[in-house]
């Protein structure tokens, strides 16, 4: 018994090592004075200086941020509506097609989605003149489309778990359907909306393939810049950028972890209170 657990935890630890070692190495070598990857040339923040001085990287990062915030917000709005439709509307005409349109983007290879979206934008511009050219707008439209599915799945599972009688009770107490949704349903599924938004944000700010297809001159996202640099080989500046990303994500997770910890403590306090009441 003891041995088996040891083996299993050993495998788990190996899995974690596999997942984290590359990231740790990346962070370490971002402080390497030497340009060569294997040679440790002493501690240096030189590459961070070069990164901050690189206007192209900064512009791209700002553009990516705008795209990600806009796409995530729009995808969360549309995805929530889609989830409501799937969970609350029962059977409706075209439901099969709709679930297909929701699940297919989850696994669709990016090269196909990217090509398809670009051809759509070209065809639309030819026939109705909008959207004019490829720009930030076309990137956002494309990102909303594939992020929408992920948000829908996240919100859908929370909505399906929610006790329907809460909505019925609100209606029974005199609230109209729209008010029920805004005052009861929305606050209860809010954590799922936040999770969906964050997921969409991450997918959008991370996307390179679809963006590469639908972008045009003047709209270069951060992943596109990184990709073109990386294709030329290992570059210490990218190590520094990666470290910045890891740092931002770590801080975000630390904050989220603290919040979750506090919520959990509050929950335990509530349970204790409830138990004391007997």
């Amino acid at each position: 018994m003891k041995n088996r657990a040891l083996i299993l935890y050993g495998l788990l630890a190996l899995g974690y090592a596999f997942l984290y070692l590359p990231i740790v190495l990346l962070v370490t070598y971002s402080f390497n004075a030497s340009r060569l990857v294997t040679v440790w040339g002493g501690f240096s923040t030189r590459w961070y200086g070069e990164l901050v001085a690189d206007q192209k990287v900064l512009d791209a990062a700002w553009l990516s941020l705008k795209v990600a915030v806009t796409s995530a917000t729009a995808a969360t709005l549309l995805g929530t509506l889609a989830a409501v439709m799937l969970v609350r509307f029962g059977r409706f005409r075209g439901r099969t097609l709709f679930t297909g349109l929701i699940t297919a983007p989850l696994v669709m290879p990016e090269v196909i989605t990217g090509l398809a979206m670009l051809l759509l934008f070209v065809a639309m511009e030819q026939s109705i003149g909008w959207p004019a050219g490829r720009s930030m707008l076309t990137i956002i439209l494309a990102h909303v489309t594939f992020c929408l599915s992920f948000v829908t799945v996240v919100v859908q599972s929370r909505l399906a778990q929610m006790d329907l009688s809460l909505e019925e009770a609100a209606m029974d107490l005199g609230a109209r359907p729209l008010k029920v949704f805004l005052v009861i349903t929305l606050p209860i599924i809010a954590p799922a909306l936040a999770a969906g938004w964050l997921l969409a944000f991450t997918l959008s700010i991370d996307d390179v393939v679809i963006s590469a297809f639908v972008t045009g001159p003047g709209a270069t996202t951060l992943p596109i810049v990184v990709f073109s640099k990386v294709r030329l080989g290992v570059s210490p500046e990218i190590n520094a950028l990666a470290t910045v990303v890891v740092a931002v994500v770590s801080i975000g997770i630390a904050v989220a972890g603290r919040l979750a910890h506090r919520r959990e403590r509050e929950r335990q306090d509530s349970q204790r209170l409830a138990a004391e009441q007997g």
Partner: protein
Amino acid sequence: MNQPLGNRLSGLLRRWGRFLVGLPPYAWLVLFFLVPFLIVFKISLSEMQAAIPPYKPLLAWAEDGVLQLRLNLGNYRYLLTDDLYAVAYLNSLKIAAISTVGCLLIGYPMAYTIARAPKGNRNALLMLVVLPFWTSFLIRVYAWMGILKSEGLLNAFLLWTGVINEPLQILETDLAVYIGIVYSYLPFMVLPLYATLEKMDLSLLEAAADLGCRPFRAFLAVTLPLSLPGVIAGSMLVFIPAVGEFVIPDLLGGPDTLMIGKVLWAEFFDNRDWPVASAVAVAMLVVLVAPIMVFQRYQSKAVDS
């Protein structure tokens, strides 16, 4: 049925409310996801031309004023005649399949161990699997370039320990692509596996033990079959996107690592041959339709239950 007017009116209103809720996402997905695929199909049947956009319309006015429909199957014929495409398709399927098995071999013990860990630790352990996903995918693939290069960290380590005498060529081989795909897609395998394993009623195993079944046999006879939905979902989540993967083979693979995503990219960006790129996409979809449907079946079942 002779319903009162008011009843019919409120029913109508309710249906309109539903309509207004459903219309935006439905219309969005039809316009931006369904229609594009029809256009891809259309353009795969047209001919390339050096213009903007670089393809000829399917409908054209012939000289005598007759509307002509020009369907061109040449792109598909081209895919069949040039070996490159067939090899790329088969190679993509092979690489995706091997990587999926790799994910399963690494991911199953991880998911199993997490699902059987003390309840208070499970979320934290699972979080550790998902965390790397929140950092950039591109950067994580890039990290492996530095590790796998011939003058990279792995070779330096192996030379230092004396396991090898001269550096191994790993980067720019299929092996590097396998490592990259397994590394990037591992969370997608672990999550659904964990979900099914965690839900499992442990008293089933106790019942099996009580009936005289040894732990390993109980795993084979009870745990494994019950976790099959998770295995299928995880495998589809890895396999389908991996078939069309572009970034990983482009950065980690060599010039002879042929994958269909790379071919499509090259046709589109380097050769600017949109019709052939579209034909490649359509052919890839045909291959992927069956796995996508399996995935969808599982996904809707998982949500319904």
